[in-house]
């Protein structure tokens, strides 16, 4: 059996060879051996690796190294940002704003705050998945302490106007948290220009290793959040625990490569995605989910009318694609994001997220279009008139 064509780069990306080399070097070399918190020479060598990684990650988003806290991934970063900032600022207010189409890591973190007495306002995006800055402004209250919006929605690929939302939040004096797991390395990010106070990153979404991520905390506005873990002073006490030197070394190289390739990767991936989108939409009854143009280069999400979702996915098992958020795939439920956009359950269930990446090829895209067309046609012929 041939390996499926991988089109799930929004769920995870392959580790770049240069990243793998950096990880291997840190694992096997003396520099990565010691605990980076140790004060002896070996510890200082490990700490240097971590410092280099921190600087590289910071540079990707226009931050300074001391504003980066390493975590286990974007899910932890989202938790630390939302719950940590909420708890730390609860004396200032207990109102949080987010959107109906956020990643479960943000939604569930917000709900955790609700369980602690916070109030939560969900913003509904427009029919294309875009959250208007005006709707954010309208939701803000004197006691609003945090707004959380993903830069690029993980299912639809739509790009939210975070800079405009950032301006709204800054004028109001509210913190803005942005989950940038999908956008880092695919869109330019400047946390200062966009007035972002907290920003979540994930290494494995940008050709780095799984199990490591980062939270940016603006040095002036959100330097402190209440830690979720306790038991050590690492990461300024915000995220205690021995740092995984080898993973961070890989994360640093992944971030550096992402920045270097920011002018070459996204246009190439966008061209492939356009070819894929055109091919998929050429099949009658196939509808694009999300904004036609205000979308990241790597995601195409479509719904298919007249075809049952589980059979659609089974018929396309030669393609590694997703039916929604990988983090919610096991539930089997129609995507809440597509429900929010107004798709009926049967249509939401028959939806697929194709996401391309650095190693995707024209031949793979054409093969995917052919398989999709054949499967949809066959299942429709099989269905009762």
């Amino acid at each position, binding site marked *: 059996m041939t390996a499926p064509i991988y089109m799930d780069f929004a769920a995870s990306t392959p580790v770049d060879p240069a990243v793998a080399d950096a990880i291997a070097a840190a694992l096997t070399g003396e520099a990565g051996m010691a605990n980076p918190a140790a004060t002896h020479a070996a510890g200082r060598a490990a700490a240097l690796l971590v410092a280099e990684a921190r600087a590289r990650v910071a540079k990707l988003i226009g931050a300074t190294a001391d504003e980066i806290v390493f975590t286990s991934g974007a899910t932890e970063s989202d938790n630390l940002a939302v719950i940590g900032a909420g708890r730390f600022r609860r004396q200032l207010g207990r109102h949080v704003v987010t959107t109906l189409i956020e990643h479960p890591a943000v939604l569930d973190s917000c709900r955790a705050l609700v369980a602690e007495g916070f109030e939560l306002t969900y913003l509904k995006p427009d029919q294309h998945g875009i959250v208007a800055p005006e709707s954010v402004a309208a939701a803000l209250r004197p006691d609003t302490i945090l707004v959380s919006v993903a830069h690029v929605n993980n299912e639809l690929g739509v790009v939210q106007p975070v800079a405009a939302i950032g301006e709204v939040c800054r004028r109001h004096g509210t913190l803005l948290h942005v989950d940038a797991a999908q956008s880092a390395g695919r869109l330019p990010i400047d946390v200062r220009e966009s007035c972002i106070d907290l920003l979540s990153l994930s290494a494995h979404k940008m050709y780095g290793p799984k199990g490591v991520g980062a939270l940016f905390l603006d040095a002036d506005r959100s330097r402190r959040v209440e830690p979720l873990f306790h038991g050590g002073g690492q990461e300024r006490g915000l995220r205690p625990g021995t740092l995984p030197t080898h993973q961070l070394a890989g994360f640093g190289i992944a971030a550096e490569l992402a920045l270097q390739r920011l002018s070459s990767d996204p246009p190439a991936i966008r061209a492939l995605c356009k070819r894929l989108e055109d091919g998929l939409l050429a099949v009658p009854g196939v509808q694009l989910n999300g904004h036609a143009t205000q979308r990241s280069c790597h995601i195409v999400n479509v719904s298919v009318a*007249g*075809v*049952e979702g*589980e*059979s659609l*996915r*089974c*018929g396309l098992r030669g393609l590694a694609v997703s039916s929604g958020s990988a983090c919610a795939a096991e539930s*089997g439920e129609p995507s809440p994001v597509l429900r929010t956009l107004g798709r009926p*359950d*049967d249509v939401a269930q028959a939806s697929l997220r194709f996401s391309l990446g650095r190693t995707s090829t024209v031949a793979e895209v054409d093969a995917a279009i052919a398989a999709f067309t054949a499967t949809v046609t066959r*299942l429709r*012929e*099989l*269905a*009762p*008139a």
Partner: protein
Amino acid sequence: MEYPESVLARFDAPPHAGPLAPGSGTVVAGRAGGVAEGIEAVFQVRVADGRIVAAAFYAYGCPYSIAACSLTAERLAGLEVNALRDFGLLSLAPELELPVEKRGRLLLIEDALRSCWRAWDNKRLAASKESRSDP
């Protein structure tokens, strides 16, 4: 979701899918379910001398639904026509390794078969009335 090989084989190339092949006998059809229910099945059955001589289906549903319709159509051939009324879908469960959570929905296939049986019974009654009214 992982599927058993027996299901995948019938899903990829389902025997007895599509229109009923031409032949002699009485043809009846029955339908059950709908898109909202996650499964819709239509069966066409050819009956001759009180026996089912051929069956075919159309189906909208999950791979288990399609495989179950295909296997049902296969099993019907050669049975007495009352099998349409009495067919128990769970008899297919071992062969298709039907998960418990799928079984309730797949029972709609039985409804489609009963719909076929009612169609056949109506035809039989109509034919019987016609023959009684003949001079």
